[in-house]
């Protein structure tokens, strides 16, 4: 039990994939304009991350390692991720066409989200079992969601605020992200 708590705290806060490890910045910046689309993206990415962690563990344990094909990890994981993302895309298109339209090109771009590949590869380097890998994947997704939602809430307020002309748009967003990152660095050494 304690182990699970440690894994979750570690992946959500201490080693937050976006603000501490600086992975997955593309959707972080791109889909955070509105809160609704951010929530949708967060849900989609968490779904992808969890499934990917599980699937990549299985592929690694049952195919790659027994056959000594460890050097194929990267490409095999990309294959897994691409399939999972495609499945997610079809699922979202069916259940929420508006979200599908809103996420637009960022949905298939989850394939190239380095956080997803990062989770899959990091899990293999840590020698974890299936449950631990899945939890890491889920925690990574939860951390990504947390930060994305916070950031989009702030961006919405910034959009309505009196930002000086030269800072409007991406500039103030980057500065905000930097400040958030500083805050999250404060978690290091917690566990």
């Amino acid at each position, binding site marked *: 039990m304690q182990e699970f708590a440690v894994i979750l705290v570690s992946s959500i806060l201490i080693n937050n994939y976006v603000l501490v490890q600086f992975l997955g910045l593309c959707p972080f910046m791109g889909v955070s304009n509105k809160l609704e689309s951010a929530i949708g993206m967060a849900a989609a990415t968490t779904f992808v991350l969890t499934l990917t962690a599980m699937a990549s563990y299985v592929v690694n344990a049952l195919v790659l390692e027994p056959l000594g094909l460890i050097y194929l990890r990267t490409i095999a994981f990309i294959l897994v991720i691409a399939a999972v993302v495609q499945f997610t895309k079809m699922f979202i298109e069916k259940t929420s066409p508006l979200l599908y339209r809103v996420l637009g090109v960022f949905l298939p771009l989850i394939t190239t989200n380095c956080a997803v590949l990062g989770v899959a590869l990091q899990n293999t380097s840590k020698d974890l079992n299936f449950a631990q890998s899945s939890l890491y994947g889920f925690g990574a997704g939860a951390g990504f969601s947390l930060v994305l939602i916070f950031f989009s809430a702030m961006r*919405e307020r910034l959009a*309505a605020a*009196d930002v000086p002309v030269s800072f409007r748009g991406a500039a103030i967003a980057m500065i905000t992200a930097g400040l958030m990152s500083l805050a999250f660095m404060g978690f290091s050494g917690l566990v």
Partner: protein
Amino acid sequence: MIKTWVTPGGVHPPENKHQSVTQGIGHLPIPEKLVIPLSQHIGAAAIPCVEVGQTVLKGQVIAKPAGVVSIPMHAPTSGTISAIEHRPIAHSSGMLAPCIEITSDGADNWIEHEGISDYEHISPAKLLEMVGNAGITGMGGAGFPSAVKLNPGRQRPIDTLIINATECEPYITADDSAIRERAEEIVEGIKILSAILDHPHNIMIGIEDNKPEAIEALAPHVDGTGISVVVFPTKYPSGGEKQLIYILTGKELPSGKLPADIGMVCINIGTTYAIKRAIIDGEPLVSRVTTVTGDAVGIQRNYDTLIGTPVSHLLTHNEYDEQAGGRVVMGGPMMGFTLPSAEVPIVKTTNCILAPSYAEIPDDEPAQPCIRCGMCAEACPASLLPQQLFWYAQAEDHERLEAHNLFDCIECGACSYVCPSNIPLVQYYRAAKGEIRHAREEKVKADHARERFEFHKQRIEQAEREKEEKRAARREAALKAKANPPAAKSETKSEAKPSSSAADIIAAAQARAAAKQASPEDQQAKLERTIAAAEQRLKVAEEKLAEAIESNSDKQAVLSAAVENTRQKLEQSKTKLAELQA
């Protein structure tokens, strides 16, 4: 001590009420002209039922209600109707509205009127009819027709009646003076309300603790009646309906709902008095207590003012010094508005005319940027987020405004009062509400237009289809007619008389056309008329074309085509005439 609750937020502006209660309620001389706006209430404007030049008596109906949510207007004094036209009224836009002007004859003669003393044995419906006929609306400021408010319907039984004697706004003492002098009549009015509402279990008069004299005046009359006088600490804005309900009962009125939905009715104490006068004395609403106050007037006092009295009349009789103050406010300093001019009339909802001196209420300081201090959120009695509403109102983000419950704002002004940057927050909310309402109306119109367009398309398609079918049927019938010899046709005709076949119609039409061809004189006359009309049209079209060429407009192509068309038609008619004459 009856338990009271404390509302969130609120502010404590200086009360400034002592200036206007040194004397009792006064009476002013009748003004020469009174102007009665036809819309002094929420709902449809009343419709005049008198004519210019007609003499009327005090209390006579001069305008009838238009629909259910509407009230009649009565002549506040006897005199002659001198005008029914648009006049300036007390509205922030400064625009005119339809009004009836009465020139008083000074006699102040009442029309024959009679009340009933035994209201307990009259049906609530009849009592409500009397209240409606007396033209009574909410006199606390909202102006909702009382007969409608007191009729919640059978699905909503009322168990709590709240009489609003709070008068939380600074400077205003109209209700306070009224209670001090008319406590007995007011309690009678409350009993009438209780009869109308089928005797609710709980009847409370909510009053702030800054009115000890009024509380004392009420005490002997409520003794033993089951009516409780509930005193609570003074705070602005406790007099708002939602706030008062919470203070007295601890119940929160859900957003978008009416008090009747939770079994409560809240009536202003001035309205209660008016209802008593209507039922017991048979008098329609023709006057109300108005406070005249502020350091720019020499005399600060409450007056029993006739509805329709020009504000200038009140000011002159109170030694108004125009140089001392920059403006005249109708209402209090928090929720009132500056009058565009003093030549506007008092209406049924006017509780105060405030003429502050420059020292008392200085001019607005310029607004500075919001520093996000959050004091507005601390002051808001509706637990809203004024700072967020301000930013979203500036950004015109309607979605976010509605998500932050913009329409629950009661526009009390507590947030603007505390803002250290002097930002006129309530103006932003009013503007935003107006924009959102306008957008909603536009949406309704657009949806309606879409429906009509869809129907239009359908209609055209249907007409096309029917034409096609008729064409096909006619073609078939023509082919059949060619194939069958005429003799056989007459047999089938007599058999199939009821359902006239397409062939019959064609034959009949041909016969008609042949008959028409008969008279050459008619034909010639017709052609000559056509030619004359065509020549006229050609002239007009050519003139238009010349104009268009001169001004080099884009309509040139269209117009020259039209000219050509007309010319061709003219030629055709001329040839036909020539043929005929030949």
